[in-house]
């Protein structure tokens, strides 16, 4: 943890913020948690509603084991206790988007128990500042439908497509102490979910949203009264909500008031939170075990199969990149932060190693540096993501191979890459067409070197008199004369020879 702890400077002194997050993550599965209806996003309203989802009389839920499998895999990915015996409970309340009049959830016996996520607050050195955030539980539950208020002047419409879709509620311990930590936690959690493939982490489409619990206290004192800001749907908004809510609470407390335990809403337009309902108005959800469902009992073999299906997770991958591939912690961190990046990198690495006939560890730095600087830079400029990169890992490997075998220099490689982006052509074809092949022929370079030194006799004198910085000048002049196609190493060597 960094030493510069996040503190709010109040009139009465410093305040510490205490944050816990309840993240609702939509489970990736073809069908809903308790019905066979499709769970995909974006269909026409009410096109994906089964009799169960609409809570028709006499309809019964049957657990979709794929959703359970995804939640168990998620639990294993955060090193959590998997409860072989869990149970579904009904959370009872009335709302028009809740057809059954209750949500099937897990209050008393969740599927996943205690786990944790390690977050890093220093991008430059992901290992230097690691903080462990406890996860209390993950339970699975049904999502509700959606109300549409803009379809009719006096009536609201209900879309039940989302009704019954499986959610994982991932409940953290109140272990975070700053907006940055909360942001890092959310990003890390999202990365893990996407590595595991149990949630697509798409916060814009609502497949991941957070309830933000915030309280403040004087450092060292017991927890203060918390508020819960519901359904915040981006990392930035979560951080904003915390900042606003914490300073609001400090203001309330310093002006002699009391923080009310309540549910609040975040307004993304103003970056502020406002009261939704207080504890007094809180629903009495009358949780009780769902009598339509038997307890969920998982065989050890099921849990083991879930474990075996897990991919290499970000932390393990980052460490392997450092130790086995010799990458710096920073680069390893960048490459493993998102599953797509890691996937792309590993494809590139494999292709590069094959093309160059070397081991992956021998080409890892070249591939990693090119990806994090050249490709990321280009994608940034083009406003594109890695998934729709105009260059494939195989094409990139071809480019890197040309550099490695001395066909082109690093400088020329940048030009070739630009052409690849423009034309979509392969690197070798571009080099051939444009005549960019690097000159490594000593004789040709020697001639140019001799001419450069002859043309700049005064500078040669100065160099020999001790102005060694001029060496770069000679290199530049030589390269320029050769349109950048000279092998820089050969140029260096020949210049050093010629200058004695």
């Amino acid at each position, binding site marked *: 943890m960094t030493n510069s702890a996040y503190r709010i400077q109040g009139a009465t002194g410093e305040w510490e913020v205490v944050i816990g997050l309840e993240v609702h993550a939509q489970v990736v599965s073809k069908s809903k948690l308790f019905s066979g209806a499709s769970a995909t996003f974006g269909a026409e309203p009410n096109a994906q509603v089964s009799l169960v989802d*609409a809570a028709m009389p006499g309809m019964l839920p049957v657990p979709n084991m794929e959703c359970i499998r995804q939640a168990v895999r998620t639990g294993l990915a955060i090193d959590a206790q998997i409860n072989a015996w869990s149970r579904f409970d009904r959370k009872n309340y009335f709302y*028009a988007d809740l057809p059954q009049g209750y949500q099937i959830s897990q209050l008393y016996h969740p599927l996943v128990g205690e786990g944790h996520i390690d977050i890093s607050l220093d991008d430059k050195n992901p290992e230097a500042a690691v903080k462990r955030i406890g996860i209390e539980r993950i339970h699975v539950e049904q999502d509700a439908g959606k109300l549409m208020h803009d379809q009719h002047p006096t009536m609201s419409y209900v879309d039940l497509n989302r009704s019954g879709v499986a959610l994982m509620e991932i409940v953290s311990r109140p272990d975070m102490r700053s907006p940055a930590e909360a942001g890092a936690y959310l990003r890390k959690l999202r990365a893990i979910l996407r590595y595991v493939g149990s949630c697509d982490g798409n916060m814009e489409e609502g497949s991941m949203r957070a309830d933000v619990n915030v309280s403040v206290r004087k450092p060292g004192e017991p927890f203060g009264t918390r508020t819960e800001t519901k359904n915040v749907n981006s990392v930035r908004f979560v951080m904003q909500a915390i900042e606003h809510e914490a300073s609001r609470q400090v203001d309330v407390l310093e002006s002699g008031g009391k923080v009310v335990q309540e549910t609040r809403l975040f307004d993304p337009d103003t970056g502020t939170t406002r009261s939704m309902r207080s504890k007094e108005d809180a629903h009495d959800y009358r949780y009780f075990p769902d009598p339509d469902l038997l307890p969920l009992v998982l065989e050890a073999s099921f849990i083991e199969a879930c474990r075996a299906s897990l991919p290499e997770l970000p932390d393990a991958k980052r460490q392997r990149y450092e130790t086995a591939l010799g990458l710096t912690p920073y680069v390893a961190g960048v490459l493993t932060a998102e599953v797509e990046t890691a996937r792309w990198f590993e494809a590139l690495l494999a292709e590069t190693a094959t093309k160059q006939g070397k081991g992956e560890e021998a080409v890892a730095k070249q591939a990693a540096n090119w990806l994090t600087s050249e490709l990321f830079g280009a994608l940034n400029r083009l406003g594109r993501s890695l998934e729709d990169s105009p260059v494939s890992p195989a094409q990139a490997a071809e480019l890197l191979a040309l550099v490695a075998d001395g066909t082109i220099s690093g400088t020329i490689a940048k030009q070739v890459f630009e052409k690849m982006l423009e034309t979509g052509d392969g690197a070798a074809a571009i080099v051939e067409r444009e005549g960019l092949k690097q000159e490594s022929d000593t004789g040709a370079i020697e001639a140019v070197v001799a001419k450069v030194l002859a043309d700049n006799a005064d500078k040669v004198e100065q160099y020999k008199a001790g102005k060694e910085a001029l060496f770069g000048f000679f290199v530049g002049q030589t390269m320029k004369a050769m349109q950048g196609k000279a092998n820089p190493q050969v140029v260096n060597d020949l210049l050093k020879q010629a200058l004695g």
Partner: protein
Amino acid sequence: MTDLTELGIADIRSGVAAGTFTAVEVAEAFNAAVAAAQPALNAFIVTTPEAALAAARKVDTARAAGQPLGKLAGVPIGMKDLFATKGVQTTAASRILEGFTPEYESTVSQNLWNAGAGMLGKLNLDQFAMGSSNETSAFGNVISPWRRPGDTAPLAPGGSSGGSSAAIAARLCPAATGTDTGGSIRQPAAFTGIAGIKPTYGRCSRWGVVAFASSLDQAGPMARSVQDCAIMLEAMAGFDPKDSTSLNLPVPAWEAGLNPSMAGKKVGIPREYRLDGMDPDVARSWDDGIAWLKDAGAEIVEISLPHTRYALPTYYIIAPAEASSNLARYDGVRYGLRDLPDGAGLQDMYAATRAAGFGPEVKRRIMIGTYVLSAGFYDAYYTQAQKVRTLIARDFELAFQHCDVILAPTAPTAAFALGEKSDDPLAMYLNDVFSVPASLAGLPAMSVPAGLDRQGLPLGLQVIGRAFDEQGVLNAGLALEQRAGFTAKPAKWW
């Protein structure tokens, strides 16, 4: 020619198969009986004579073509209006579902149609199966075909499967479906001199059955003989992947396994069921049952079910708790009644819809259920009730170490008159005192006619068996039936 409406399932099935009469003739006979009795007995909420005829025609055609016939080929039955029937209004006897026509068929009713049965109509019941007299139906109460001699006071057919019991006793159908949550098959069977079995919880799928209390609801057959119950249960039961609580077990050949000999069997007589101030006719009938089973070769043993006295309060916590949640879906949003007063918001719509749609007994149970699940009361009521339920189930487990089946009365009295108990919910609830324990334990239990009380009204005897041992229950029922020689039937006054 025999009056076809006097025939039960076995006789109709063999008559149709042998060509003694056609399935259409049978359907027509029962259709006529239904139509004639409907104004007086109100046993049906809707009648479906065409459905009965259509099913019968299929059977006749199949028979003519030499195709194999199902277990219930040519048998028209009544369908309790708690089972969703595709294209036929399904109401649970509540205004809140009036006009609701499902797009789906319940698993149990589909199983019956697949076996060759036809539907005479949807039978009346207590609203959402909550009641013991059929007086809570929103569509008028069913009148029992039975009357006290020399008295025209209308009697309760029992509940909640009162339409089923009345229709069978009045020969409007040879058999009908019932559902039993705390005695809703057994008590009406006892009140009307017919047989009915609630199988082990999970034997019959609950998919498509309007839920009352999910952990207790169980469908079963009602008919005039034990054999008919066995035949029909075989057709109804079976694993259903659409019901998570369905038993994944093969359906035994209960009919083929029927055996009235009780030799080598032990029959337990629970001492706690012998209540102070027990109706002497009920006590006498119980003694008759003991003598009959002894005569059939059984050894009689006294057993103890020490938590019996907690069964009723336990039931009246768990069942309303589940009901309060199960009935939340009737909110006026998607189907059924919607009462939307001018300018009403969502909460107003809920309140108006549910106030207008639910009857007083349903509201009472929703309120009890909501209360016992509320914060601060949950542990004292619901959690405690679940613990007691476990103890009651254990009572039975221990008892069944000493006996094979248990014999008890089905209900504490014979049928009462309509209105006699309807303003005293507690008196009404006490009707379930003998039936509720087996429901809480999920055990198979049946009622068979045992004779008449001094008023000339039927009394039933209840046989409770081990989980999954419907065969033992049916066999003991058969032994009782053979010795009781119950042939009484209500004099036709309608």
